[in-house]
């Protein structure tokens, strides 16, 4: 049972995704574990053949309990130790094994052109890399489906092959996926408590919310107890970004349109490259910078609750890819299906209050990170440019910083970098 968060002490195995005799490779998801925050898909960190499943679905066990045996490997899933231990087991290193799939640029381009979902593809090339043949096979077996249907199918675990489409010319629509996903499960009766909002009866959902609230309370209290926070704030003129966004979205189908959060998240990730003192962990009385920028995104859940999974290597993603990952991540977070690599791996987190939020947010840092970026609601403000005042879309950006790791000067440099990056959105 891995520790999927800094304060996790036990978890419930809700579902096995493999059975004895299955061959697994490093990075494959093998089980679903229920924590206070979400149902997390857990990956295996070794290659081998599953020999024995040791824990029954529905059982709650302490962190560290061996869940299964795999021949050809030590134990599985690899116990992801909490970040408060030594640097060699810090989240940024333990999550590199299941990193984004490896493939050559021409293969990646082919996958993009064919609309193949790389996240669902298993590579058969050396070291698990994805080959051209892997992409072509995936294309051949894909039934025509709308982008929304493909996304919903991935999120709900519905196999597109064999789905009868009711859209134009037999295309599979989102409604088709929703119809199948909400049908009574044909699988053997394995208790899957609280696997989707609104499907369970009131009591388990309430308990889950209460448990989530308690977990958040513990973490936030610890943060304020241990981290001496300082706060900086700046208001950024977004008119260039907003105009660029309108131009870019015009003529795009809705599945490719971006929200203003996308360029802001990309700018936050790139600014972390420029000011690396804010990207990493405070562990054992010292700051340990991370070589990756895994950007945590605070996602509010309907009905209450806040989860902050990470977009891995957000600084390396194209803006379009980051937008797709953001949509996917938020949807899976709200559906309660996150992956292990997304939890506990953020090196820096952004909390975006969005359209309904207050003008500015002075947030609480998620330990062991050393900073939190806050984005308020985008509103028109009177801003002076070249001596003339006009109403311009703008956003109040705040930085909460761990004063053990950095001073206001470093935080200011970060906010300055963030503003500069947003001023040239075409380069994001």
């Amino acid at each position: 049972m891995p520790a999927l968060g800094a304060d996790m002490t036990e978890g419930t195995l809700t579902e096995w995704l493999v059975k004895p005799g299955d061959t697994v490779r490093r990075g494959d998801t093998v089980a679903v574990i229920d924590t206070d925050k979400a149902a997390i898909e857990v990956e295996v960190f070794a290659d081998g053949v599953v020999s024995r499943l040791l824990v029954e679905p529905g059982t709650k066990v302490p962190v560290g309990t061996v869940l299964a045996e795999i021949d050809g490997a030590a134990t599985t899933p690899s116990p992801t130790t909490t970040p408060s231990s030594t640097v060699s087991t810090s989240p940024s290193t333990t999550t590199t094994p299941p990193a984004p799939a490896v493939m050559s640029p021409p293969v990646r381009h082919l996958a993009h052109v064919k609309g193949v979902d790389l996240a669902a593809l298993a590579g058969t090339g050396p070291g698990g890399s994805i080959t051209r043949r892997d992409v072509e096979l995936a294309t051949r077996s894909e039934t025509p489906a709308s982008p929304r249907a493909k996304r919903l199918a991935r999120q709900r675990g519905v196999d597109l092959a064999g789905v009868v489409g009711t859209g134009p010319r037999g295309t599979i629509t989102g409604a088709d996926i929703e119809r199948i996903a909400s049908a009574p499960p044909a699988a053997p009766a394995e208790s899957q408590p609280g696997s989707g909002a609104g499907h369970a009866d009131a009591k388990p959902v309430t308990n889950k919310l209460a448990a989530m609230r308690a977990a958040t309370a513990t973490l936030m209290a610890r943060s304020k107890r241990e981290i001496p926070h300082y706060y900086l704030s700046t208001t950024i003129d977004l008119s260039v970004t907003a105009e660029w966004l309108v131009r870019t979205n015009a003529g795009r189908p809705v599945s490719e349109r971006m929200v203003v959060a996308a360029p802001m998240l990309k700018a936050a990730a790139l600014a972390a490259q420029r000011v690396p003192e804010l990207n990493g962990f405070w562990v054992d009385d010292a700051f340990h910078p991370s070589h990756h920028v895994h950007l945590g995104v605070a996602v509010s859940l309907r009905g209450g609750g806040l989860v902050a999974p990470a977009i891995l290597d957000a600084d390396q993603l194209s803006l379009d890819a980051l937008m797709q990952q953001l949509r996917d991540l938020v949807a899976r977070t709200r559906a309660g299906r996150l992956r292990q690599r997304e939890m506990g791996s953020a090196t820096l987190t952004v909390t975006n209050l969005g359209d309904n939020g207050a003008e500015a947010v002075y947030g609480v840092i998620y330990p062991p990170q050393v900073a939190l970026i806050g984005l308020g609601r985008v509103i028109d403000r009177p801003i002076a440019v070249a001596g003339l005042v006009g109403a311009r879309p703008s956003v109040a950006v705040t930085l909460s910083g761990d004063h053990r790791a950095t001073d206001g000067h470093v935080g200011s440099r970060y906010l300055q970098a963030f503003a500069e990056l947003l001023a040239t959105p075409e380069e994001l």
Partner: protein
Amino acid sequence: MTNEQAQAVAAKVVAAVAPDIDPGTVEVSARLREDLDVDSLDFLNIVEAVHDETGVDIPEADYPLITSIATLASYLAGRTAAHT
């Protein structure tokens, strides 16, 4: 598309992004953002679902017109009437 059909589609797509909303009983004049807690990503999902279900593509410039299930319904009725 009749007004009744448009309202049914509108209620359905909004309820799909907000599973806690019952399309049969929701207040159609409730504001999507302030009252039903629909955010910008939810809104994109609504626009996508509308396109999926009806073939109507809502351009970004028209987003401000869609503030509730009622206004979404009248927008859809208007758009589909023009096509017949």
